[in-house]
């Protein structure tokens, strides 16, 4: 969906689909807001959690209807996963896991919509020339989630172990309480604490972003002629089927890591 008068090259095609719609909220590059990421994620969250809320409001402890049974299946699934890892009061951690799972799944699932169909919608219905439809292929989203989880992790570390207990853990685990081991322990923990949010966010971002790129490369091949159409179509079908797995799997992994980090924050060594 290149603008009129602009020549369509592979570079312009890809960069067009990967350019965010931005608005500036103030001076400096930091105050740029990715309107597409923010709004798409918000709309998906409103739809997803609005649906859950709507079903839950009419929930009965008697015989559930199909809608409620579906939602209960989701709740049971999340609750079982959390129960297996997190041993404690699940009143906050389970809904946290549910929120992460549902939101990430919905945002990833935007990848199912072929980019050019999504672009046609945003171009002609919303009159937005640039609109990146998958919020999780924006590193801001994945970092936001990972850092939120990281902040909760720090919060629970302090809440459960106290500041003294947490500092003790930072210096005395995993190798031992010997004073000579303190620097080594701290270095180890530092690396761990830095790597947690990084791997947490970049895993999701990389998977979804790469998925999009591969789709775009296949669509470009499909634009080159009959052979490209057939080959690109077949390969894109295969990749789309595989992508169903990636979308669900990445949402699941993101949720599980969230729960694992919460559980680690609650356990003292």
């Amino acid at each position, binding site marked *: 969906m290149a603008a009129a008068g602009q020549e369509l090259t592979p570079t312009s095609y890809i960069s067009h689909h990967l350019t965010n719609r931005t608005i500036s*909220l103030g001076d400096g*590059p*930091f*105050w*740029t*807001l*990715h309107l597409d*990421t*923010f709004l798409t*994620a*918000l709309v998906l*969250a409103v739809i997803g*959690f609005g649906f*859950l*809320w709507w079903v*839950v*409001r009419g*929930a*009965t*402890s*008697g015989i*559930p209807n199909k809608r409620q049974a579906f*939602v*209960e299946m989701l*709740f*049971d699934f999340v*609750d079982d996963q959390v129960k297996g890892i997190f041993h404690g009061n699940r*009143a*906050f951690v*389970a*809904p*946290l896991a*549910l*929120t992460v799972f549902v*939101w990430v799944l919905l945002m990833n699932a935007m990848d199912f919509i072929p980019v050019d169909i999504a672009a046609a919608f945003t171009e002609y219905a919303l009159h937005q020339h640039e609109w990146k439809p998958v*919020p999780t292929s*924006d*590193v*801001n*989203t994945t*970092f*936001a*989630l990972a*850092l*939120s989880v990281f902040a909760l992790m720090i919060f629970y570390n302090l809440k459960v172990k106290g500041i003294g207990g947490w500092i003790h853990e930072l210096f005395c685990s995993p190798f031992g309480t010997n004073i000579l081991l303190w620097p080594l322990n701290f270095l180890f923990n530092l690396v761990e604490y830095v790597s947690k949010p990084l791997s947490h966010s970049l895993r999701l971002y990389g998977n979804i972003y790469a998925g999009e790129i591969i789709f775009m490369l296949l669509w470009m091949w499909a634009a080159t002629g009959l052979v490209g159409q057939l080959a690109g179509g077949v390969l894109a079908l295969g990749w789309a089927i595989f992508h169903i797995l990636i979308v669900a799997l990445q949402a699941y992994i993101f949720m599980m890591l969230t729960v694992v980090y919460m559980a680690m924050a609650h356990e003292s060594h």
Partner: protein
Amino acid sequence: MNLNVTLVAQVVTFFVFVFFCAKFVWPPMIKAIEARQKQIADGLSAAEEGKKSLENASKQADEAIAQARARASEIVAQAEKRVSQMIEDAKTAAKTEGEREKAAAKSEIEQEVSRAKETLRTQVATLAVAGAEKILKREVDAKAHADILADVQKQL
């Protein structure tokens, strides 16, 4: 890949929805699920109890039937005993009655016989007296010879 205020916006969105989920979505659903689990558990235990009491009841019923059967056969046995007793009694009674009647008839017959003998004796005495009168050609005073007549009668 540039980090900017979008990150902050997404963090805010995330926490808003986490709060929303933890406050309005998760608790009622889990409450409903747990209430149902409790209902099912209660129902299962009630069913278990019902099964047990049914078992008890059928055991009691079996016992009652067995008792009734035993009692019935006892009653039948008693009745049979009583019947044979009654038959026996009736037989005995009939036998005694027969004996008694037989004895009565016998004594009557004997009385008849003795009466007939008496009559015969009297008549024979009269006949003898008449004969003797005829033989002696004189009247024998019956009154005067009453002792003789009686003696004769006795000898008959």
